[in-house]
């Protein structure tokens, strides 16, 4: 979900998806989509020949951005986010 961060943190093999947090393998109940993530991930695991290999998967999240952006977030802000928001005033 954040392949650029994985690159910065020096992950040796990376598969990127442009999905909301909590959905690494896709939509609930969509086995076909889940397979379109897991299978390439396995191919990268076994087939990458050099450190830093990154493969981004071209699947558009099938929910409008505004809706998906809200949907992944917890109903209550996490403790660190609450602290961050309080500090910011």
């Amino acid at each position: 979900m954040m392949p650029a961060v994985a690159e910065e943190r020096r992950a040796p093999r990376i598969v990127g998806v442009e999905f909301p947090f909590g959905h690494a393998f896709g939509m609930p109940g969509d086995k076909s989509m889940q397979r379109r993530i897991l299978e390439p991930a396995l191919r990268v695991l076994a087939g990458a020949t050099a450190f830093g290999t990154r493969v981004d998967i071209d699947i558009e999240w099938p929910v409008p951005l505004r809706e998906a952006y809200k949907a992944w977030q917890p109903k209550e802000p996490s403790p660190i986010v609450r602290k961050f928001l309080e500090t910011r005033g």
Partner: protein
Amino acid sequence: MIVDSYRFLPRSFRPIYEGRGPFPGEESPVWAPFAKRLGASRIALLTSAGLYLKSSQPPFDVAREQDNPEWGDPSWRSIPAGADPADIAVAHLHINDQDIRADPEIVLPARLLEQLASEGVVGSATSEHLSVMGYQDRSLEGWRQETLPKLIKWLGHQQADGVILAPA
């Protein structure tokens, strides 16, 4: 197509993640060649979604995190590949877990991996998989000192040739 890593992240949080570089001491590349054929390899999964089994495992300690927002539970759970989805719960304060509870395969696709094993895409899947809670103390001290060595040992016992790490 290049994935936008920040598409779903609130804009004000972006500087927390972007341009931070590697953790101190982890600047050098780490590389382990994968020598075996995928179709002859045993594969494990690791999710950071904070999954646990309601019937037999304690949840990750979110109460302590509520009291100390800088802290995250560094413990881990093993999730049997054939676990009843209704028995899988989530303890993670940073995501909405509704979709995960509806279909845990979106973070830990154990049944799909079993299917890929039956088709010969992979040799086999481990009988259990790993779950951690991805929000951790910034120093990663508990994670490095206690959790990681145990996970590596566990993966050895499971005779895993490779592991897919799935962030939540």
